[in-house]
Structures are given as structure tokens and as C-alpha cells.
């Protein structure tokens, strides 16, 4: 099943990459889906954190903390590729534009979540602290989304999520959406991997983990 998922991911991922021949704008296929994922994963993390806080569901806590490194990775990718795109197009690696700055804050929020979780030994307490931090950070999400409309600076406005017709040609939109979908699938796979590890470590004294160790089942 994992192989099938990986194969699907490879097909979805590789096909659009070869599809559009072009110039520097081709960075869009990783830059934009990564940025979407950075927001999406943050919302997943905050919601899972809230569920963990309210109903004390262990799995929700684990999903929340396991999402953080993946979200941080996508945020980093969005910033890094944006920088590599900005250099030839805007003539600069970085500007203190509202979109860029708020996305950087998002990266720090993710890193803060990871750091805070690591700093507290009791993982149930750590999960609570992390969930509160994540929920406070949610205010940043609409700021990122609307930053290009509120402040008219260097970063361009939205081209896809407009109410009327997207101002991007359909031949470019399709691979972009395919990439977004493949990133979502990737997130699921990466999340499951992290959840498995986190679950094992948390439950290392439970019967089922001990039985698994004895069977050496991986």
C-alpha cells in the first residue's frame, strides 16, 4: 500500500514537472503548493491541538506534534524557493514584504512548537503547551493569506483563489493543482511515518509495544 501511494505520488509529482517547459516561473509548481501546505498543515496542527486539549485524545496530540516538522519543512521550502524566484524576477533575495514577513513568522511558530515540545519531558503536558502556542499562532494564518491584498507590496496578488476566474492559464493551473494534490498525499505519508514513531515512543511501556519489540516486527 505504501508502494502504491509512493507510485501515485511519483506519477503525480513527476508528470507535471516535465509537462510545462519554461523559465523561472516553473518554480511556481513547488513554491505555491508548499505555501498552501504550510498554511494547511498549520491549521491541521492547531485543530488537532485543540481536539487534544478539549477531549484529551492522545492521537490528536500526536498528530499535532507530528505535523510540526512537516509544516516547518514546507514553510522553509516556500521561503527558500520564493527567494530563488525573487532573485531573478525582483532582483532581490529578500524584502520585508508583508507576505514574506508573515510567512517567516509562520516558520518561527513551527520551530517554536517543535522546541517547546522537546523542552518539556512530560509529553502530555508538552502537548498542552504546544496546542496553546499553536492556537495563539492561528491569528497569523489570515494575515498571511490576505497580506497581498491588505498591503500592496512586491509580492503579487492571488492568481488562483479569486472568486471569479483564476488569472492563470489552465495549462499552468492543472499541473499546479496536481502538485498541490501530490503535496497533500505526501503530507499524509510523512505524517503517518512520524505518528508511528511518536506513538511507539510514547507507549514504550505498554503491552502492545513490548510485544512488538519481542516479535521484532517493524
Amino acid at each position, binding site marked *: 500500500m505504501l508502494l502504491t501511494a509512493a507510485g501515485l505520488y511519483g506519477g503525480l509529482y513527476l508528470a507535471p514537472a516535465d509537462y510545462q517547459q519554461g523559465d523561472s516561473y516553473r518554480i511556481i509548481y513547488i513554491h505555491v503548493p508548499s505555501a498552501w501546505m504550510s498554511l494547511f498543515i498549520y491549521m491541521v496542527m492547531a485543530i488537532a491541538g485543540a481536539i487534544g486539549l478539549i477531549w484529551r485524545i492522545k492521537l490528536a496530540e500526536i498528530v499535532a506534534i507530528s505535523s510540526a516538522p512537516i509544516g516547518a519543512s514546507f514553510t522553509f521550502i516556500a521561503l527558500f524557493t520564493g527567494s*530563488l524566484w525573487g532573485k531573478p524576477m525582483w532582483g532581490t533575495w529578500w524584502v520585508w514584504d508583508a507576505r514574506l514577513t508573515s510567512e517567516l513568522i509562520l516558520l518561527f511558530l513551527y520551530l517554536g512548537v517543535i522546541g517547546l515540545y522537546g523542552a518539556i519531558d512530560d509529553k502530555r503536558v508538552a502537548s498542552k503547551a504546544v496546542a496553546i502556542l499553536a492556537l495563539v499562532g492561528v491569528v497569523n494564518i489570515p494575515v498571511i493569506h490576505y497580506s497581498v491584498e491588505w498591503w500592496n507590496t512586491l509580492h503579487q496578488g492571488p492568481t488562483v483563489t479569486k472568486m471569479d476566474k483564476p488569472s492563470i492559464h489552465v495549462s499552468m493551473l492543472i499541473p499546479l493543482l496536481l502538485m498541490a494534490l501530490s503535496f497533500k498525499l505526501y503530507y499524509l505519508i*510523512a505524517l503517518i511515518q512520524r505518528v*508511528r*514513531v511518536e506513538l*511507539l515512543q510514547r507507549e514504550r511501556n505498554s503491552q502492545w509495544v513490548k510485544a512488538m519489540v519481542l516479535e521484532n516486527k517493524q
Partner: protein
Amino acid sequence: MSLQEFFAMGGYGLYVWTSYGLTFVVLLANIIIPVIQRKQFFVNALKKKR
């Protein structure tokens, strides 16, 4: 379009391929790291048992 032109990306090859390369490395790391951690977990747990 030749293969060379494809790699050149109209002069933006360095930017485009660095972006794609870095993305690939980061995404791959996010899969490999938990897999290694899981293997490590079983190795350590078995050591403790003995």
C-alpha cells in the same frame, strides 16, 4: 526542445533546479528520518530487554 535547453531553463536553470533539488531533499528527509527513528527505536528497545 533539446535536453540542453531543458536544463538551461531559459537561463534560469540555476534557480529552478536549486529550488527543485532542495525541495526534493527536504521532502525525502521527512520520510527517511521517521523510518530511521522507528528502526532505532526497536534496536534500542531490544537492547534494553537483554
